[in-house]
């Protein structure tokens, strides 16, 4: 198959001049790699904040009658914990941080399609975080991250601030989604057809429309809640003709696809880590890519499974139940494909690989409980209990966050040119894995035996289980701190590792670490899918990348 060459004088030949000065280089940078690292640093700061709130929650729940915080403070703490982890940590980490840094390199582009828009997306994000935490000063929102009215209509002044903050994050996500989608559609290197894209790109490709569409829907819901709180425009207040269920529909129409925004990129990370460390092609490339698409499409049709007990017409429950169960099929295909990728490999258990394998185990468990919850009769029992808490943390912590850690250990050398400590890394993994399961496994039991979620105090029969969970949670928090310490230490002191320490085959590993601001000296051509370990690399035009050949000439400044 003939591979089209880069058109002379086109965008691929158009290189921004090298940014000069600290501000242009590191603060208001338009370089996708710098922006990615900015996202990574910011999200890890919010991870620490959100993690501290989580520990406050676990300390409060050590005793059945609470007592560490007042119930009102506790309600604020868990609401901000949830909002932080969803909107300020997992979503921007997976799209903003890893998406930005990795996929333009993987498709052989010099930057994303709209670098200035990318910068704007990032700079909307820290102010939103500050606003969210600023709401503590004016009385934080206290009705959970879902902020169901009428509770949220009566919430303190900070609830409106919450709306505004999340709206800003939403705008940032939407712009990122548009940017990524255009980049992936239009800026792939010559020869990089859709079936030759690395699976991480596929994951971002599927996530971008979700970001773009679902987040806007959330924006509408937030705007409605905001104007109802501030100007009394009745959307949700039943005493004025509104409907509390309308919020639940509008909110979950976003928040269910958001679940896939938080997991699809992780599928992508794992699909890169597995072949690299098993030294084997990913098993069933097309099925993995295709199942991502079907998950994304189905993801838009199942939102009301969060509302089975809320009071929707019973006959409407059926399609939502069946469609939700259908998602188990593509998800199962992915899991089986990853497990099959290990078969016959020569698996190198680096920390990244350990986290990826751990991810499969915990995510499978979280996925199975998810299918349970899809069954309406089971959900009638488990809805709103600690079983839900267990399920969502298995998916978001055991799933997304472990994927993030895997990605961090995997791409850290590309970002810095140095390795994170593998020895400490392996310790970290086991601490985290044990701490995580010890924290959240007992919550399944609590929930099924009758402990509701979002409570500041609870029936004494659950005290033992809660104390077990709280104790293990310290282990988990400690492991996260170790990861951060490891990263900070390794930036300056890690082992230098050259351009491709893992012997990986995707494009980003064929250029120096960290990459030059222009990414590639010449845009390469792509001849095949990257995962054939017994064949030479399927790229042409990379000969100069690791030599002293002169960098490309920037376009004239305008």
């Amino acid at each position, binding site marked *: 198959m003939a591979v089209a060459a880069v058109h002379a004088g086109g965008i691929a030949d158009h290189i921004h001049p090298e940014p000069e000065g600290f501000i242009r280089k590191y603060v208001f940078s338009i370089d996708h790699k710098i922006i990615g690292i900015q996202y990574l640093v910011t999200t890890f700061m919010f991870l620490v904040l959100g993690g501290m709130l989580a520990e406050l929650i676990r300390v409060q729940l050590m005793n059945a009658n609470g007592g560490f915080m007042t119930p009102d403070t506790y309600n604020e703490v868990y609401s901000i914990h949830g909002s932080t982890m969803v909107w300020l940590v997992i979503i921007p980490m997976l799209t903003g941080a890893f998406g930005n840094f990795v996929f333009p390199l993987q498709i052989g582009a010099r930057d994303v399609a709209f670098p200035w828009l990318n910068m704007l997306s990032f700079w909307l994000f820290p102010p939103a975080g500050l606003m969210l935490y600023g709401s503590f000063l004016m009385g934080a929102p206290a009705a959970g991250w879902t902020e169901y009215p009428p509770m949220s209509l009566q919430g303190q002044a900070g609830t409106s601030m919450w709306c505004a903050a999340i709206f800003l994050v939403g705008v940032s996500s939407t712009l990122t989604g548009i940017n990524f989608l255009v980049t992936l559609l239009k800026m792939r290197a010559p020869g990089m057809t859709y079936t030759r894209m690395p699976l991480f790109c596929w994951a971002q490709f599927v996530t971008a429309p979700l970001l773009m569409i679902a987040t806007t829907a959330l924006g509408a819901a937030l705007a409605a809640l905001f104007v109802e709180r501030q100007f009394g425009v009745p959307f949700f207040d039943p005493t004025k003709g509104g409907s509390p269920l309308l919020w639940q529909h509008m909110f979950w129409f976003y928040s269910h696809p958001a679940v896939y925004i938080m997991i699809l990129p992780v599928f992508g990370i794992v699909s890169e880590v597995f072949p690299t460390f098993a030294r084997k092609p990913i098993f069933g490339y097309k099925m993995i890519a295709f199942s991502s698409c079907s998950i994304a499409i189905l993801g838009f049709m199942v939102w009301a499974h969060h509302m089975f007990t809320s009071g929707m017409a019973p006959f409407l429950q059926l399609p939502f139940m069946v469609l939700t169960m259908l998602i*188990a099929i593509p998800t199962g295909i992915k899991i089986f494909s990853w497990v099959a990728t290990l078969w016959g490999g020569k698996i190198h258990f680096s920390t990244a690989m350990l986290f990826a394998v751990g991810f499969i185990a915990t995510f499978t468990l979280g996925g199975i409980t998810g299918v349970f919850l899809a069954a*309406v009769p089971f959900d009638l029992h488990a809805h709103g209990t600690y079983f839900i808490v267990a399920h969502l943390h298995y998916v978001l912590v055991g799933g997304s966050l472990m994927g993030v850690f895997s990605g961090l250990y995997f791409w850290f050398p590309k970002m810095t040119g140095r390795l994170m400590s593998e020895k400490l890394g392996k310790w970290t993994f086991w601490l985290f894995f044990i701490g995580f399961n010890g924290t959240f496994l007992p919550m399944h039991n609590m929930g099924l035996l009758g402990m509701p979620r979002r409570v500041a105090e609870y029936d004494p029969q659950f005290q033992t289980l809660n104390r077990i969970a709280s104790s293990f949670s310290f282990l988990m928090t400690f492991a996260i701190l170790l990861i951060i310490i490891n990263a900070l230490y390794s930036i300056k002191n890690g082992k230098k590792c050259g351009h491709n320490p893992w012997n990986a085959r995707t494009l980003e590993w064929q250029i120096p670490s960290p990459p030059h601001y222009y990414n590639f000296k010449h845009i390469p051509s792509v001849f095949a899918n990257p995962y054939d370990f017994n064949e030479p690399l399927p790229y042409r035009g990379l000969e100069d990348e690791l030599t002293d050949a002169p960098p490309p000439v920037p376009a004239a400044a305008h």
Partner: protein
Amino acid sequence: MAVENRDPAVRLDRGFWLVTLLLAVLAAIGIVYWALLAPITSWLPEAVDKAQQIDSLSRFLMASGTALFIFVAGYLLYFSIAFRRRASDGPDAIGVQIHDNNKLELWWTIVPAVFVVVMAIFSIQIWAGIQLGDNNGMVVEALGHQWFYSFRYPDVHGEITNEMHLPLGTPVTLHVTSYDVIHSFWVPDMRIKADMVPGIINTLRFTPTKVGRYQIVCTEFCGTLHGEMNKQYLVIDTPQKYKAWYQGWQQKNAHASDAIPTQSTGAISLSGGNVNAGKMLFTQKCSACHALAPFSQKVVGPGLKGVLSDPAHPNLVDGAKATPENVAKILQKGYKGDMGQMPNQTANGLTDKDIADLVAFLKSTK
């Protein structure tokens, strides 16, 4: 471009089949445990008929989930150990270069798909038993407040804010709703719950099957003391005991008002009523049941145009003369009669000033 037959033949060795056998045995044990042995009722009694149905589904889900997890985690662990890079492998050692196996992939699409179909059919069956019953049971109402439940029984005046009793073996239709924010009515031993959403009535149907005292728990966040909203109990009695309890409440509440206790009890001052504000309120609060038209145009209640000025307008529904004071009294207390029920001041969310505004507006219609 791709060489179609480059994938080497897959040979599964004895180790693989032994592990498969082991996992199959473990999975079988898991299935047998969840399907037959797990003492679910000793963990959590089955208080109503629906609990048994839901538990049978739970057993099915747990059994299949356990089996699936054992296989995935088992193979994950086995492959991780068996195919780890050994010291004897060079750094350039690569694995078997397999890309696809259409047959295998077809199977692991079909088998889960069949399983999903089975699960869906089973779930729908149970779902139909729970959701599609008719409302011919004994009707009881549970109402959510911040932060307690109250209950209404047929032919018992007022509300019961203590325990909720139900007779063994009698089908019950439980309507739930809320006065303020969203609550939820969950009895873990019943395995079913319904959210109590203001403005919406949700229904649970069940038949008590086991005498006992069961905790009622709120699972929707409802404010400061949400965690303490688990202090009330559902008591399932023998029919005799239930009757005694029921008659006790009938006598105790014989003179209780069916109206929800209102904020104001005295006469409402009607001075300063604002016609425009009243008009707005009328559209929001009254017009679902009352037309702004002559008396004869009934919606649920009669048309109210000119109620205070039309000499042809008959007396009010409670027999009193149509004076501003008497209209205000009905607005305040509500009314229950053969036409239906008009909610009182609290249920309608009206302040005293609102009532004054409404009366002023009604006076202005001629």
